[in-house]
């Protein structure tokens, strides 16, 4: 099964060069947000301004979050990975927000529960196969002892870019 090939020409071209997933202008640290919705909107606005996603990304990500929450009760620091379907993405990248004060995200797989989240990774992924690989790398990264605290304690976008670069290189 090879879905969406035509839409993905850009993504394919891009995947030939070494992919940097996080860029300094897509990192908000420290970030102030009132709610999960606010955090997703702020990160989505950065993605939109940088030309990485279509205008439809923010409403699509908010709607997806409502149906399939993405808060992960990770050790040390809660993480959420809001995203929208591939058709809303132009170029793949991750926008990262490190919240000064946590906001509650719905817990993935558990509609009755929420997770206090301080690290929000808004994933803009243009190819579904790549989302799987990215998610595997992110999960490994979240499970490496100390990494989430390191991200939560980072003082600058450059520092956060460095941590992500170290953990999630994809061919």
């Amino acid at each position, binding site marked *: 099964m090879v879905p969406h090939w035509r839409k993905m020409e850009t993504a394919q071209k891009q995947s030939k060069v070494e992919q940097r997933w996080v860029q300094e202008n897509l990192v908000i640290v420290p970030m102030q947000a009132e709610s999960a919705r606010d955090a997703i909107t702020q990160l989505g606005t950065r993605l939109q301004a940088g030309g990485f996603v279509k205008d439809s990304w923010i409403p699509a990500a908010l709607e997806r979050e409502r149906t*399939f929450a993405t808060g*992960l*009760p990770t050790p040390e620091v809660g*993480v959420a990975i809001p995203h929208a379907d591939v058709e809303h993405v132009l170029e793949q990248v991750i926008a990262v927000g490190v919240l000064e004060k946590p906001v509650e995200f719905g817990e*993935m797989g558990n*509609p009755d529960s929420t997770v206090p989240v301080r690290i929000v990774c808004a994933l803009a992924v243009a190819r579904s196969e790549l989302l*799987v690989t990215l998610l*595997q790398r992110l*999960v490994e990264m*979240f499970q490496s002892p100390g990494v989430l605290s390191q991200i939560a304690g980072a003082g600058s976008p450059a520092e956060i870019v460095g941590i992500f670069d170290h953990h999630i290189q994809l061919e």
Partner: protein
Amino acid sequence: MNGEKRVLIACGTAIATATVVAEKVKEIAKEAGITVRVVQCKAAEIRGRIATFNPHVIVATTPVPKDLEIPVFNGVPFLSGVGMDELKAQIVEALKAA
């Protein structure tokens, strides 16, 4: 051991989290010496897949109906790392019992 065990993995879109969880389930089944067949589906397809695939165990990263009459495990610990060892043990036990 009495033959192949069928595991249904459900997530929002059947692609991302389900694939990560499916890999983990295959890995732990192999470690435990259990042969498994793993199928992924969208949460919305779960009842239809139960009818056609007849799974022994379901692992989901998204809410699923509570009246499925098949052991259902929340697969999110495979993503968050919290409670993963307990979940592994529970799934192995359920597969052995199936």
